[in-house]
C-alpha cells in the first residue's frame, strides 16, 4: 500500500496540472456584470459559468463578476439558496443579473424523497455538510454531535485512530431489548457512514417520528439516519482541493503520584492490609525493606529507586494527522458528475515505536476514500445515475491492544523503572509486563479493510400514461473485505534484586519470520428497489405519491445464511394551497427473524401540517412571518433482536462442545436457546407535535414534543419462569417502555453591513420509563425495573459516615457478602434489613447511563473574508460509576493519584475514599453511591477561523477561491471530572482505554 508520506508530492503535481489548465489564456471579450437579489443587495460567491465550456468564475462580495464568453453562449448562475438562472449573451458586455431566492423554503430530505418547509409533516433534523467539515475528525460520527436535535452521540471508547466510533441513539433508548440502534442508510441503502469523507456528503438527516420513519416499517422504531452523498450539477466544473494538517493531543491524562509519595502511601496501605501484625512485626517485615523506604527514592539510584512517569515516557504530547481531498463537480444538461478522492492518515501517540529496524509499531490509521457519481439524462424521460463509492483502510497497530498498553501505564507505579541498570527491560513478580515491551517488542498488526458501495438508479417519466407519473429503481451492490495480518513477538522482563542479581519473567523471542493472517472476512450485499412515483399539481392542489418495493440480501463468508430484508412501502401527500398538507405513509415489511405468519407487519402513519402564516389572518405579517403546526401519529416496529442472534423462531442446535475421552476430543452437539415460533416485532406507537415559528425573517424556532409507546418488547421470561427448565428461555414479546421528550431548535441569521452572523441552538430531552417488564411478585420495592428508566444505574447506597470506624462498628453492622471487612471499608445501607449486604440491596442511583439531555449551540459570523464558527455541545442527566485506577488506586499494587490518596480514610480527617489497600477488595469497589458521578459536561466541540483570499488576487491565477482555516475539535470541556484529570464523557479514556484527544488543525481549501 502506498504510504501517505508521498502524498504531498502528488498533490503538488496535480496542483501544477490544474493551474496549467486554468491559466491557459482565453482571449474572448470579457463580459462584466453585477449580481443582485430582488431587493438589490449584491450577491457574492455566485458561480458563473459558460454552458458547455470550461470557463468559470464567481462573483465577489459586491456581486461583480467578469467572464470571457462570446455572444450566443449561455451563462449559468448558480448559488445555493437561489434559483439557477440561465442567461443568453447577446452583444451586451455589461449585464445586470437578478437572482431569485429559492421561493419555496429550504428543501428537506425525507425517506425516499424531499419536502419543502411548508409541506413537511414529520419530525426530522438535518445537519449540513458544511457543518460536518468544520470538525477535524476522521470518523464522521464524531462530527455530528450537537448539530442535530434528537440525537445522542456517546463515546465509549478512546480516540484510537480508526477505532473511535461513537454510539448513536435517536430520541434516547426506547426499549429494554437488545436492538436499540437506529437504522443507518447511505444513499437509501443500509450502510455504515462512519468512515465516509465529510467532503462526499451532501446532507445528513435524522428521521425521528413515525411519519418520518414509517416507510422503514419494522426497522424504523429506533429512528433512522439518512446520509446522502453529493451529485454533480449542470455547470462548469468546480474543482475543490482541501489539504489539512493537524495534531492530536490527549485532553486529560491521570496524574499519579511520584515514587516517594507512592512508597509512603503504599506503606499505609500495607499497614491496613496487615493490621493484625504488631507495629514491631510490621516494621521488621516491611519498613526494614529498603524498597519501602521513601528516602531512598531521592534520585541517587534511578534503576533501583526510580521515579518513572509512565505517561510522559510512553505517550507523545502530540500525534500528527493529515487529510486531503480533491473533488471535481460539474456537468452538462446531459450528464452531471461528481468525483472525489480523499486520503486520511492519522498516527498514534505512542513513544518507542521505532525501536526495530524495518517496521514501526506506531498506530497508523490510513484511509483512502473515493467516489464517482454520474447522472445521465439518457432521454428526456429517462435518467440514470451511477454512484460508486469506496474506501480502503488500514489500521497498523502494535500487536498489543491499546487497552493493555494504556492500562499498564495507568497501573505501574512510579517505583518501577522502565529499564534496569543493565539496560534490560524491568519488571517484577507483580508487574510481569512493561509498556516498552508491549509497544516495541510484541510485533505489529495490519488490519486491512476494503469497501465498495455501488448504487445505480433510474428514473423514468411515464407522462405518456398519465402526467406526473414516473417509475424508478435502485440497484445497490456493496462488497467488503477484511483481512488482518500480524507478526508476533514476546519479551521477558527482569527484576533487579537487592543483591544485583536478576530474576526473569516471561520469555524473549524474535519477531515471527512470516506473517500470520486472521479475521479474513468477506461481505457482499445486493439491494433492489423499484417503484412508482406520482407528482402533480392541479391548481392549488398538489399530490405526491410513492409506492416502492425493496429487497436486500447480504452474503457473508462462513456459515452465515444470507441476511435478508424485504418490504413494500409507500406514501401519499396531499397539499392544498400551501396551507394544509396531509400525508399517509405505510410499510408492509418483514423480518427473516420471525416465522412465516409472524413475519410481515403493516405499519401506517398519518401526519399533517397547517401553515397558519399562509392564512389570510397571518399573511404578510412582518413579525410572525412563518407559523406552522404539524402533527403525526403512527405505528412503527423494531425487529432488531440484537447483534448475533438470528432466527429465534426455530430450534437452535449446534455441533461442537464435545468431551475428551481416551486421547481425543469427541464430537459434540448441544441445544441453544429454546425457539419461539410466535415471536414477532416490537411495536411502537409514536406521536409527535411540532410547531415551527419564523420571526422577523431572522429567527426560526422549531419545537417538537413526542411520546413513543414501545410495546411487545423482545425479551425472555427468565425473570419469572423457573430455572429448572434447564435452558435459555425463548424470546417473547413482553414488556413496554414509554419514551417522552421534546426538542427545541433556534436559528437566527442576521447581517449588519459586512458583518453577518448565525446563532443556532438545539436542546433535546428524552426520558423513558419501563412501564411493564415481566417481574416476580414479592421483591423489595427498589428491586423492580418496572417504573425505572431503561438505562438506570443501580448500586449500593453508602450509609452515613461512609466508612467503618472500628471493628465494633463492623460487628454491629450488616455483614458484607463482598469479603471480610476491616476499619476503613465502605459501609452500605442494608435496605432490606436482612443483615447481609448483597445484590438485594442495590437501589436505583443517580441518572441513567445515557444522557436525557443533549444540546448544541453554534455561533458563527463572517466579516470581509473572515469567518468564525464555534460549536458548544453538552449533555446532562447522565451518571456513571467510576471504576478505574484513578479512583481505585493502590488496589492490586497499582499506582495511585494524589487526589484519592490524600482523601482516603486514615489519611484525611474527612475521607471521601476507603482505606488504601494493596490487595483486591470487592466490598469497597461495588457499584455504589460512593463511585457514582454526575458526568454532565459542556464543551467547545469545534471552533473554526477561516479567511478567504480576496478575489482580486485570485482572478489572475484563475482560482475561484482560496480559504485558509484553522480549526479544533474537543477543545475545552467544562465538567466535574476535570479535577480528576479524566474525561467526563469517557472516564476510562487514558486509564483503560486509549486517551481522548483534542485536535488542532490547519488547512486550506482551493476552488477552481
Amino acid at each position, binding site marked *: 500500500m502506498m504510504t501517505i508520506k508521498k502524498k504531498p508530492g502528488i498533490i503538488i503535481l496535480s496542483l501544477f496540472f490544474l493551474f496549467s489548465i486554468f491559466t491557459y489564456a482565453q482571449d474572448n471579450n470579457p463580459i462584466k456584470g453585477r449580481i443582485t437579489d430582488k431587493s438589490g443587495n449584491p450577491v457574492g460567491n455566485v458561480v458563473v459559468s459558460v454552458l458547455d465550456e470550461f470557463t468559470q468564475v464567481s462573483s465577489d462580495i459586491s456581486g461583480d463578476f467578469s467572464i470571457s464568453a462570446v455572444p450566443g453562449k449561455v451563462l449559468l448562475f448558480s448559488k445555493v439558496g437561489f434559483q439557477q438562472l440561465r442567461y443568453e449573451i447577446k452583444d451586451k458586455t455589461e449585464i445586470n443579473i437578478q437572482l431569485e431566492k429559492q421561493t419555496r423554503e429550504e428543501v428537506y430530505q425525507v425517506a425516499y424523497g424531499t419536502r419543502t418547509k411548508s409541506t413537511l409533516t414529520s419530525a426530522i433534523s438535518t445537519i449540513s455538510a458544511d457543518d460536518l467539515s468544520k470538525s477535524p475528525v476522521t470518523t464522521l460520527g464524531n462530527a455530528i454531535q450537537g448539530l442535530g436535535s434528537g440525537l445522542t452521540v456517546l463515546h465509549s471508547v478512546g480516540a484510537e485512530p480508526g477505532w473511535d466510533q461513537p454510539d448513536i441513539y435517536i430520541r434516547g433508548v426506547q426499549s429494554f431489548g437488545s436492538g436499540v440502534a437506529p437504522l443507518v442508510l447511505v444513499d437509501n441503502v443500509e450502510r455504515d457512514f462512519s468512515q465516509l469523507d465529510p467532503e462526499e456528503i451532501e446532507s445528513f438527516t435524522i428521521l425521528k417520528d413515525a411519519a418520518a420513519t414509517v416507510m422503514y416499517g419494522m426497522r424504523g422504531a429506533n429512528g433512522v439516519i439518512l446520509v446522502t452523498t453529493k451529485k454533480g450539477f449542470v455547470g462548469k466544473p468546480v474543482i475543490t482541493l482541501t489539504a489539512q494538517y493537524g495534531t492530536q493531543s490527549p485532553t486529560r491524562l491521570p496524574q499519579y503520584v511520584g515514587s516517594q509519595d507512592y512508597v509512603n502511601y503504599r506503606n499505609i496501605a500495607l499497614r491496613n492490609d*496487615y493490621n493484625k501484625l504488631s507495629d514491631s512485626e510490621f516494621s521488621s*517485615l516491611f519498613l526494614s525493606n529498603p524498597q519501602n523506604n521513601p528516602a531512598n527514592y531521592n534520585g541517587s539510584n534511578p534503576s533501583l529507586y526510580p521515579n518513572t512517569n509512565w505517561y510522559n515516557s510512553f505517550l507523545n504530547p502530540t500525534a500528527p494527522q493529515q487529510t486531503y481531498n480533491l473533488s471535481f463537480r460539474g456537468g452538462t444538461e446531459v450528464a452531471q458528475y461528481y468525483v472525489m478522492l480523499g486520503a486520511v492518515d492519522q498516527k498514534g501517540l505512542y513513544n518507542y515505536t521505532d525501536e526495530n529496524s524495518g517496521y514501526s509499531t506506531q498506530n497508523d490509521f490510513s484511509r483512502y476514500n473515493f467516489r464517482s457519481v454520474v447522472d445521465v439524462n439518457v432521454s428526456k424521460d429517462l435518467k440514470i445515475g451511477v454512484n460508486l463509492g469506496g474506501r480502503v483502510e488500514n489500521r497498523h497497530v502494535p500487536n498489543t491492544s491499546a487497552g493493555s498498553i494504556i492500562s499498564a501505564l495507568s497501573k505501574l507505579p512510579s517505583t518501577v523503572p522502565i529499564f534496569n541498570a543493565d539496560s534490560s527491560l524491568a519488571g517484577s*513478580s*507483580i508487574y*510481569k509486563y512493561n509498556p516498552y515491551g508491549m509497544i516495541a517488542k510484541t510485533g505489529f498488526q495490519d488490519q486491512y479493510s476494503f469497501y465498495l458501495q455501488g448504487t445505480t438508479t433510474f428514473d423514468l417519466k411515464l407522462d405518456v*400514461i*398519465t402526467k406526473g*407519473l414516473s*417509475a424508478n429503481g435502485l440497484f445497490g451492490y456493496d462488497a467488503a473485505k477484511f483481512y488482518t495480518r500480524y507478526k508476533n513477538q514476546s519479551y521477558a522482563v527482569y527484576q533487579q534484586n537487592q543483591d544485583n542479581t536478576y530474576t526473569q*519473567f516471561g*520469555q524473549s523471542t524474535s519477531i515471527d519470520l512470516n506473517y500470520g493472517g486472521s479475521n479474513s472476512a468477506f461481505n457482499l450485499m445486493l439491494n433492489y428497489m*423499484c*417503484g412508482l412515483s406520482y407528482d402533480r399539481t392541479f391548481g392549488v392542489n398538489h399530490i405526491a405519491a410513492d409506492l*416502492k*418495493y425493496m429487497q436486500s440480501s447480504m452474503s457473508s463468508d462462513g*456459515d*452465515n*445464511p444470507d441476511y*435478508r430484508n*424485504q*418490504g*413494500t412501502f409507500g406514501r401519499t401527500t396531499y397539499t392544498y394551497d400551501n396551507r394544509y398538507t396531509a400525508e399517509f405513509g405505510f410499510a408492509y415489511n418483514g*423480518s*427473516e427473524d420471525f416465522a*412465516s405468519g409472524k*413475519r410481515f407487519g403493516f405499519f401506517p402513519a398519518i401526519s399533517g401540517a397547517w401553515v397558519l402564516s399562509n392564512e389570510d389572518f397571518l399573511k404578510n405579517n412582518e413579525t410572525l412571518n412563518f407559523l406552522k403546526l404539524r402533527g403525526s401519529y403512527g405505528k412503527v416496529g423494531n425487529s432488531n433482536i440484537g447483534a448475533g442472534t*438470528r432466527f429465534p423462531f426455530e430450534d437452535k*442446535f*449446534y*455441533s461442537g*462442545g*464435545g*468431551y475428551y*475421552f*481416551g486421547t481425543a476430543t*469427541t464430537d*459434540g*452437539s*448441544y441445544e441453544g436457546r*429454546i425457539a419461539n415460533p410466535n415471536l414477532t416485532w416490537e411495536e411502537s406507537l409514536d406521536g409527535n407535535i411540532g410547531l415551527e415559528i419564523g420571526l422577523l425573517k431572522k429567527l426560526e424556532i422549531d419545537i417538537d414534543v413526542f411520546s413513543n409507546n414501545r410495546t411487545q418488547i423482545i425479551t425472555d*421470561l427468565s425473570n419469572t419462569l*423457573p*430455572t*429448572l*427448565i*434447564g*435452558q435459555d428461555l*425463548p424470546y417473547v414479546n413482553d414488556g413496554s417502555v414509554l419514551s417522552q421528550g421534546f426538542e427545541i431548535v433556534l436559528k437566527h441569521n442576521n447581517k449588519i453591513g459586512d458583518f453577518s452572523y448565525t446563532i443556532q441552538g438545539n436542546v433535546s430531552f428524552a426520558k423513558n420509563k419501563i412501564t411493564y417488564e415481566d417481574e*416476580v411478585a*414479592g421483591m423489595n420495592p427498589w428491586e423492580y425495573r418496572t417504573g425505572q428508566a431503561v438505562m438506570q444505574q443501580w448500586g449500593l447506597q453508602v450509609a452515613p459516615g461512609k466508612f467503618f470506624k472500628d471493628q465494633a462498628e463492623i460487628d454491629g453492622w450488616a455483614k458484607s*457478602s463482598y*469479603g*471480610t471487612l476491616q476499619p476503613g471499608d465502605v459501609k452500605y445501607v442494608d435496605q432490606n434489613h436482612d443483615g*447481609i449486604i*448483597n*445484590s*438485594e440491596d442495590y437501589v436505583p442511583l443517580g441518572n441513567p447511563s445515557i444522557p436525557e439531555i443533549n444540546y448544541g449551540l453554534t455561533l458563527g459570523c463572517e466579516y470581509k473574508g473572515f469567518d468564525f464558527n464555534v460549536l458548544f455541545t453538552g449533555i446532562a442527566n447522565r451518571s456513571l460509576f467510576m471504576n478505574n485506577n484513578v479512583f481505585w488506586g493502590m488496589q*492490586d499494587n497499582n499506582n495511585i493519584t494524589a487526589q484519592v490518596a490524600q482523601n482516603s480514610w486514615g489519611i484525611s480527617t474527612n475521607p471521601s475514599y476507603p482505606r488504601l489497600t494493596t*490487595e*483486591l477488595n470487592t466490598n469497597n469497589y461495588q457499584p455504589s453511591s460512593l463511585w457514582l458521578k454526575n458526568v454532565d459536561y459542556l464543551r467547545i466541540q469545534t471552533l473554526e477561523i477561516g479567511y478567504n483570499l480576496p478575489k482580486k488576487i485570485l482572478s489572475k491565477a484563475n482560482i475561484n477561491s482560496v480559504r485558509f482555516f484553522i480549526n479544533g475539535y474537543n477543545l475545552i470541556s467544562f465538567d466535574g471530572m476535570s479535577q480528576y484529570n479524566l474525561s467526563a464523557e469517557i472516564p476510562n479514556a487514558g486509564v483503560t482505554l486509549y486517551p481522548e484527544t483534542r485536535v488542532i488543525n490547519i488547512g486550506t481549501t482551493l476552488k477552481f
Partner: protein
Amino acid sequence: MMENMKKNILIFMILGTVFMTQSCSDYLNKDADVNTTLSYQQIFSDVHLAPGFLDNIYTNMPDGFSRFNGAMLAAACDEAVCSDAGSPIQLFNNNAINSTTNPDDQWSNMYRGIRKCNMFLKELEPDGIITKTNSIPVVETVGTQVVNTRNYYKGQALFLRAFFHFELLKRYGNIFYVSKVIDPFNEEEVYSGTQLPYDQTVDSISNDCDSAAKYMPASYPDVSYDGRPISWTALALKSRLFLYAASPLNNTSNDLTKWKRAVDASKVIMDSKKYSLNTLSSIFTSLYNPEIIFADKAINRNDIETYNYPVSYQGLGLMNPTEDLVEAFGMGAVTYINRYLNYNPADPYGLKNTKKREDRFRYTIFYNTSRLVNLSNSKDTIVATYVGGKDGLFSTPTATKTGYYMSKFINTSIDLSKGTTSYRAWIYMRYSEILLNYAEALNEYDNTGANFTAIINALNLIRNRANLKPFDAADKALLQDQSQMRIYIKRERRLELAFEEHRFWDLRRWKDAETVLNQPVQGMKITIDDSGNYVYTLFNADTRVFDVKMYWYPIPRTEILKYRSAGKTIVQNPGWD
C-alpha cells in the same frame, strides 16, 4: 383505447409491485444451503451428533479446581485458607451466604445438565429419533468385540442424570427430580414437579444408578472409551449416595438399615476387583489410572499451578492448608497408636532428622523447605515460607496466610515461566473413597466380629499405600470401640481425601460443622532466630463461622419468588426464608 392501455399498464405496475412482495413472501425464509444451527431432528438423526449430544452433557459437571476464581471448596471449611481476601469463597467463612448470593450455587447448571439427559433419553425411547433413525446403533463391532452401543449411551445419560441430581441433593436437600424435558410454553408442565422428601430423592437417584449400571458395560473394548463411566461407576455413586443418606444429618433416627445399604453399595465395588489403589505420587497426574472411578475430562492445563504454586514460582499461592490439617498428619511408617512418636514441635516437618511426616503429607502440603522435586528450570526448588522468605507470609498479597501451600494435584514438572502444561482431570470418585465409605458405614452398622476385621482390612489398604504400618494389636484394641473407630475414619477421610471436596460435605453430613467450623483455623508462623534456627509459632490464621442453616444451601431466592408469584408451592430450606 390509448387511455385504457395506459390505465392497464398502471394497474399492472401497481399490482406487480404488490405481487412481488406476495410472490416473494418466502424470500425471507432462511437460506437452507447455509446452516449455522441444526434442527432437533438433524441432531438426533446424525451418527456423529446424536452421540455427541450425550458427550456434551459431561461439560455440565462442576470442576473442583476452578469454580471460585481459582479457590477451591476446601477454603470454605477447615482444610485451607484462601489467600485472596476478596475471593468469593470467603463468603462461606463470613457467614455471608444467602439465597441471593452463593458462589457455589449449582441450581441452574445442574438442571441444564438434567434437561440434556432427559432430551437424550427421550429420543432413545422406542418412538424416539435415535431409535427410528438408528443414529446410535444398537450394536457395533469394535475390533473383535460386539458392543451394545445404544445401551451404553442410555446408561451414561441415566448415570449423568443421577450424578446431577446428587450434586443438587447434597447442596439443597429439597429438590425437584426432573425426569422429562420441560416445555416453557406449557405452564402446567413447568410447574408439574414438586420437591421430594430427601429419602425419596435418594431412591430416585439410586434407581437411575441401577438402570445406568444395567445398560453400561463393566468395561469398554478399547482405550478410546477411557474416562467414560461404566456400570461400576454408577454403583460407586450409590455408595456415596447411601453413605450421605445414612449420615446423622439425613438419618436422625439412625436407621441402621440405611447404613447397611451403604455398606452393601460399597462392598459391591470392592468385590468387583475393578479398581485398585494407585501409587501415591501419580494419583492426580496419571490419567485413567486404576484408582479413578470417575473424573472430569482431562485437559491440558496449568491453571492449577497458576493458582496454587507458591508465589516465588509465579503462582498465586491461593490454597493455604491450615495447621489443623497439617497436625492431623502423623509420622511416617508407624502404627496408628504411635502416630506422633518422635514428633518434635521444634521441628514439626522433620527437617533435622529422618523422623518425617507420613508420605501423604508432602503430596498434600508444601511446607517450609519442602522441595518442588521436578521443577526443571528454577535453580531454587526449595519452598521458603518463613517470614521474610520468598514464599513467606506477607511476601506478596496472595502469599500464604497459613505458612503452607497446597501440593496436592500439583504437577511440579510444570514451569510457569515457560508456560508448560499437562493433562489433568478433576477426580470425582476414586477407589480409596469407596474403602472409606465401606469402613464408615460398616462401623456404624455393626462393628463387631468379622465386620471389624473387614473394616480393618479395608483401612489397612489405604495405610499400606500411604506407607504406614498396618494396624497392630494395640491399634485394634483401641479401634474396637465404635467411637474410636469413628474418630479414626473421620481423620483418615480428612487426610486421604483432603482438598477433594469431601470434608466440606462430610462435616455437614456428620453434623460436625457447627462445632468444627465455629472456631478459628490455625497457621504456622516461622521466623528465624538470631542463631539461624527456625522458630515455630502457632497463630489464628482465619475465623470460621457456621450457622446451622448452612447445613443446606438456600434455594435461590429468584426461584422461590417465581413459584410464589405463580401461586405454586415451593419450600425453602430452614433458616433461609
